[in-house]
């Protein structure tokens, strides 16, 4: 089956399930993706009427992790009396992971959420495509067979899909939500653990400490500290982020490298064992910084140390929020 036909199947199943859930009053609204106004985009949409389900699309351009809109930081979807609405959410694997994590951290009530599980076939890596096309405007993008075809005014360029999807999608082991039939309809699976070799992290690991430092400095140098990565992250939901606190000031607010590094360092700490590997942070970065390398390394550390992968279950809290007498603590220094 080609990507093109897979997409059609996924799209049809999303629409059918959404229609069914709405007509049977199992949910009040559907959170999904609709066609964007630009060739390499999609827009998150809230569907309130059965007749509107055809606005839902599946086009491999779903960069925002829509579990973001469930997080407590966002205005909650309520009826006129202020009661929470029941939400059907189009859930690829990483959306499902975020929903589970938010539930495990007691930030959402799963009784109000129904996942419409799909077997995700990845997102197009638009920053690489943009980079390769350069100073030309893309007027149309379509998936034909197994190719991404970008068209401009008098040019056309073909990108093989398997090479031009996000790096995270290439190594993704959780393509559909890990959930039971209670919380998910459609494509779901019950995963307890996943097998991941982290082969993509090997290149970074092979670097010396100095080379790693150079790599991180070089990668983060363009950062403007706009915090788009934080805003897009489905599991960043603090009411007041540490960077915004000014009593006391936790860290400098300039765009000089030390401040930039501190932000990304603390962000990494906060996401250890919590990142759901959706890649939204990198996709939304206005200056195109690839944060996926950092988040993959985080995932690897947590997997190897605690045999934990975030978002596989709505019950298990991440290791950093838990305490176990069995944790290895070889880094603790003895007093004497």
């Amino acid at each position, binding site marked *: 089956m080609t990507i093109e036909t897979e997409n059609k199947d996924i799209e049809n199943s999303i629409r059918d399930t959404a229609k069914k859930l709405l007509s049977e009053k199992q949910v009040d609204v559907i959170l999904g993706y609709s066609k964007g106004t630009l060739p390499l985009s999609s827009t*998150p949409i809230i569907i309130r009427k059965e007749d509107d389900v055809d606005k839902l699309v599946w086009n491999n351009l779903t960069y925002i992790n829509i579990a973001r809109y469930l997080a407590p930081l966002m205005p909650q979807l309520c009826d006129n009396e202020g009661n929470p609405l029941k939400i059907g959410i189009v859930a690829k694997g990483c959306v499902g992971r975020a929903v589970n994590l938010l539930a495990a951290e007691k930030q959402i009530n799963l009784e109000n959420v129904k996942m419409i599980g799909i077997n995700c076939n990845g997102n197009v890596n638009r920053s690489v495509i943009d980079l390769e096309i350069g*100073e030309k405007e893309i007027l149309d993008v379509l998936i034909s067979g197994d190719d991404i075809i970008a068209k401009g005014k008098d040019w056309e360029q073909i990108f093989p899909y398997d090479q031009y999807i996000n790096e995270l999608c290439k190594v993704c082991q959780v393509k559909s939500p890990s959930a039971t039939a209670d919380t998910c309809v459609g494509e779901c699976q019950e995963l307890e653990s996943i097998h991941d070799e982290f082969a993509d992290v090997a290149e970074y690991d092979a670097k010396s400490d100095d080379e790693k430092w150079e790599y991180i400095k070089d990668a983060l140098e363009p950062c*403007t500290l*706009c*915090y788009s990565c934080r805003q897009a992250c489905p599991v960043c939901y603090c009411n007041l982020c540490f960077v915004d606190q000014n009593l006391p000031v936790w860290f400098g*607010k300039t*765009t000089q490298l030390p401040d930039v590094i501190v932000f990304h360092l603390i962000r990494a700490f906060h996401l250890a064992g919590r990142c759901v590997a959706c890649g939204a942070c990198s996709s*939304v970065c*206005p200056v195109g910084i690839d944060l996926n390398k950092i988040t993959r390394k985080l995932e690897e550390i947590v997997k190897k140390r605690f045999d934990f992968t975030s978002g596989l279950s709505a019950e298990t809290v991440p290791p950093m929020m838990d305490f176990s007498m069995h944790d290895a603590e070889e880094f603790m220094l003895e007093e004497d």
Partner: protein
Amino acid sequence: MEQKILKKDEIEKLYNELASEYNVYAPVKKKGNISFEKIEKSEDIVLDYLNSKIPPKSVLFPQMEVLFEYTLDEKDVEITDRQDLDQKILILGIRPCDAYSFELFANFFSSHGNWKDEIYLKKKENTTLIGMGCNTPRTTCFCTSVGGNPFNKENMDVFLTDLGDKYLVEGISDKGKEMVKNLSWLSDATDADVKKSSELAKQAEESITATIDSETIVKNLETNFEHPVWREISESCIGCGSCSYLCPTCTCFDVIDETDKYNNRGRRIRIWDTCQSCLYSLETSGHNPRDTKIQRCRNRIMHKFSYYPENYELLGCVGCGRCIAVCPANNDILTILHKVEKIEEKGG
């Protein structure tokens, strides 16, 4: 002949001549993004570009700027003011929309003369713009709907038109005319060159298909502050503020003090801020007049299309389309404005 010709292989010569007098800023490609940077060698200049990702406002209003530094000595404070404000700045290759944004900046930074931002105004006064016509506007460009034009020469000192293998050079302001005169090695343009330039200008203008009805928008915004459309408009926004960071007319900044108490010194810095951040409008009392996403999304539109016209009789948008291209949720300002256009009059 008023118009001159600059051959494409003469950019280096032009740069060398200008660099002796000015700090030259021009578009460069950094990690795939076009931005205006200080040029150290002419090979870095990229004039064949659509538009810069980060607007050239960053040259005169950098994201982070030290306003002054100070040292403390017992009870005395010694303030060191900026020493670099007399340097002459030249921005090469700026597009008409961005050049116009500097005119809008002047309103904010001089506030009808009530208050003057000396740092910005001084830099602006020392700035010369060698702009360039926009041969290929993008589908997201709508400058012609907000009073602009891809070949608007008004705010430039010198204007270049890319004729393919060479540039047509025109002095616009008195300063620009003088500059062109001093570049005596430029060859004369022919009638055919001038004709080609006006054809390109016409083609560029016609190629802009995105439009808004600014008059209706301004009128509708006056009476629809509480309209349900704002909820709809803000629903997909994730509040990242990229739209305002990359907006050539957004001027908001925050001021922070960095103190180094061990060395008895410090500095006052301004950094870009965004009204899309929840903290932006948080008051000391704890009250936040723009506590919700709906209010913040509305403010962005109101500021550009209602408050700005009210205060300065100008639209606060230059139609560059950067916010459309950058929005991760694809919350397209054209879609938003078209929704505002369609709001029916109350009771109508």
